[in-house]
């Protein structure tokens, strides 16, 4: 497949601007306030998804201090990077791309950004969130059965924090089912729930437990 044929007119036009397509993409990344998908970015820039993906990866590497288009980039160690890392990074989270300040500067940036940072979750909230993340969509009754305690107020807190949401009702019992939100993915820095760590290594010898619980579903 020839890349030439696939490209709309957009790329050539972008390349005539100072800084080219890369800078144009950067300009767009400056105004988004939630992760933007490659499709959205491609449509906005009027280029193909493949072109945008290349550009995004170039920028990502560059911000991290690697020379753009360096051959065999992955093999380049930090010490060999030809430029200093920038104070920010480009990341692919919750299915979209977004610019973040680099974590090395968390203390300093935290002095300027007062709001929007969430306080730490309690142990109870974390455990409830874990059960919902791995068993979604799931009712409170079932979470409560797994945790052995009432989870009502914790579920309310997690909903208010935007980490979980109502995903409709169970067709059989009518109970409200909960699932994690894309904000949860963002906070976890992952693209989808499929990227969560595997549960099975923590469940020795319990391969059949899912079936068991699905059968005797609470």
């Amino acid at each position: 497949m020839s890349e030439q044929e696939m490209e709309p007119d957009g790329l050539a036009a972008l390349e005539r601007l100072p800084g080219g397509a890369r800078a144009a993409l950067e300009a767009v990344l400056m105004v988004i306030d939630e992760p933007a998908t490659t499709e959205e970015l491609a449509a906005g820039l009027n280029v193909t998804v493949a072109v945008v993906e290349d550009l995004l990866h170039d920028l990502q590497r560059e911000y991290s201090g690697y020379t753009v288009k360096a051959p065999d980039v992955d093999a380049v160690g930090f010490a060999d990077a030809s430029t200093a890392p920038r104070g920010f990074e480009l990341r692919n989270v919750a299915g979209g791309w977004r610019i973040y300040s680099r974590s090395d500067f968390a203390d300093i940036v935290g002095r300027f950004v007062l709001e929007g940072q969430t306080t730490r979750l309690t142990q109870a909230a974390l455990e409830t969130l874990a059960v919902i993340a791995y068993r979604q969509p799931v009712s409170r009754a079932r979470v409560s059965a797994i945790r052995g305690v009432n989870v009502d107020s914790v579920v309310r807190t997690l909903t208010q924090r935007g980490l979980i949401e109502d995903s409709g009702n169970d067709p059989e019992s009518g109970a409200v089912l909960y699932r994690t939100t894309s904000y949860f993915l963002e906070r976890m820095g992952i693209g989808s729930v499929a990227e969560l760590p595997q549960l099975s290594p923590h469940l020795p010898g319990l391969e059949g437990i899912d079936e068991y619980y699905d059968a005797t579903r609470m």
Partner: protein
Amino acid sequence: MTDTPTAAPPAVGETASDAGTSEARKPGFEVRLANFTGPFDLLLGLISKHKLDITEVALATVTDEFIKYIRRLQELGEDWALDEASEFLVIAATLLDLKAARLLPAGEVEDAEDIALLEARDLLFARLLQYKAFKEIAGILGGTLEEEALRYPRQVALESHFAALLPELVWRHTPGQFAELAAKALKPKDTVAPEVGLDHLHAPPVSVKEQAEIMGYRLKLGAPLTFNALTADAESTLTVVARFLALLEMFRDRVVAFEQPEPLAVLTVRWTGDDAAWDSSSLSEEYGPMPGADESGNDGDSNNE
């Protein structure tokens, strides 16, 4: 059942700081565990942290310590909370279950009662292990969330010249409609109330209205259906009961007719209502509106119903 003296009695009533919990609160009945959150936590702690076999957990010691704790509170002139007492009972009962199951000699399963006990044991251990797995995962999630919180996303307001490009909003609300919206949004709501915790009964709540809805949909297709056919997919007796009650209500509403040639014969149900006019909202709520939907802000209530 005898208590093994070598089993270290759990420390009771120690302060939050010793236990490593982050919140300072009045010293509750606490076993020496970090972040105690429920009976499973306690059991896990007893089994793994104290490296105890479940049969060696000195239940009597735990009980003694609990009574001591209550007495001390009384001396201090403090009321002790009902939740604490009931939580202790849950712990004690679970421990007893486990102990009873564990004390069964292995390999000598004879009667149904033994099997039931073994199943109870398997279930309890499976649940404990599952809980343990989630606890470990929660630790990992917590670590990731903390690490990720070090990165701040760029989420600046749109530059004014771009904001000016946005199309004018379509606004069709009169002040009256807006006030209605506000009243609805401001109404105190317990977002999680419409579901009552019935997990201790191991049966999900069943709504008569919903069952009526389901049957209405099937009957409206035209063909008469037997009661057996209407309840063939009911997963529990509760659902069958709910469907029966729903049918009585629908009969009262004159949207269904019954045919039964003789007592105890097959009951056939036929749709007689106007398809468009009827919906399940006409049914009464007397079979169990969920309690505490609006007035109760107290989560602890739901299990006491």
